[in-house]
């Protein structure tokens, strides 16, 4: 019962944050709402017994990414006049909802018909750091290495792209 309450509270934050992010006119408000949603998402992971994911989400998504975004927003120093006016925001959002609704509906239909209505029983160690680590290095070594390559490429790419802009 308490889990349900937690779930609905978190869900409220999550959806509220997401909606706030796409509707806020000021960038900084969007970013703040987004951070709220991300934190709520970490909570969702905890609810799902994914303790390691919960940590990773907090550390990487919230800690690193959001901070980075904030940093960029501030460092580029975007003042009000650079922010797009978006005079028809309401209309555009409505359009977006109209387009997105069938897609969402389709996905939901698919999920509803293909997944069990209950959780499977799990051992206590499920989702812990040790367990995830064992799985990761037992059968996911190659993807893991590939992801590290991707990160490296992204790192270099990010530097190159931002330097290039500087020169011109």
């Amino acid at each position, binding site marked *: 019962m308490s889990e349900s309450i937690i779930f609905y509270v978190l*869900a409220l934050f*999550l*959806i509220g944050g*997401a*909606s706030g*992010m*796409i509707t806020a006119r000021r*960038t900084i408000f*969007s*970013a703040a709402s*987004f951070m709220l*949603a991300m934190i709520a*998402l970490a909570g*969702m992971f905890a609810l*799902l017994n*994914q303790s390691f*994911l919960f940590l*990773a*989400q907090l550390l*990487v998504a919230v800690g690193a*990414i959001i901070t980075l*975004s904030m940093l*960029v*927003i501030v460092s*580029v120093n*975007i003042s009000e006049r*650079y*922010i*797009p006016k978006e005079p028809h*925001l309401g209309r*555009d*959002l409505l*359009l*977006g*909802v109209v387009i997105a609704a069938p*897609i*969402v509906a389709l*996905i*939901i239909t698919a*999920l*509803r018909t293909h*997944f069990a209505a209950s959780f*499977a*029983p*799990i051992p206590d160690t*499920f*989702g812990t750091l040790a367990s*995830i680590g064992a*799985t990761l290095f037992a059968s996911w070594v190659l993807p*893991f290495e590939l992801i590290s390559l991707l990160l490296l490429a*992204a*790192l270099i*790419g*990010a530097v190159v*792209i*931002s330097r*290039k*802009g*500087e020169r*011109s």
Partner: protein
Amino acid sequence: MSPLHFLLLGTLLFGIGLVGVIARRNLFVVYMSIELMLSAVNLLLATFSRIRGDEGGAVLSLLLIAVIAAEAAIFLAMIIALFRAKRSIDAHDFTQLSQEHNA
């Protein structure tokens, strides 16, 4: 509180991200909407993992977080570059794919 709730929530988040990508012109918001869509997928993956009791989904989700991080780095760098080039973060200002620019 069945798995379906989590699935519904994830899909909804995905939809909200989609709306953001479609409707917003602010590059930052577009970027965050994409992040949101990825995170929504992340949530779904975690849920599937929990439903099946299979940690593979959790691992995939973990890798996805890394991808999100990489994507964030690139996207932010691009925003900086674009902003430097045009002094704008309005997506409507970047239309170099159109024919008038090629001609």
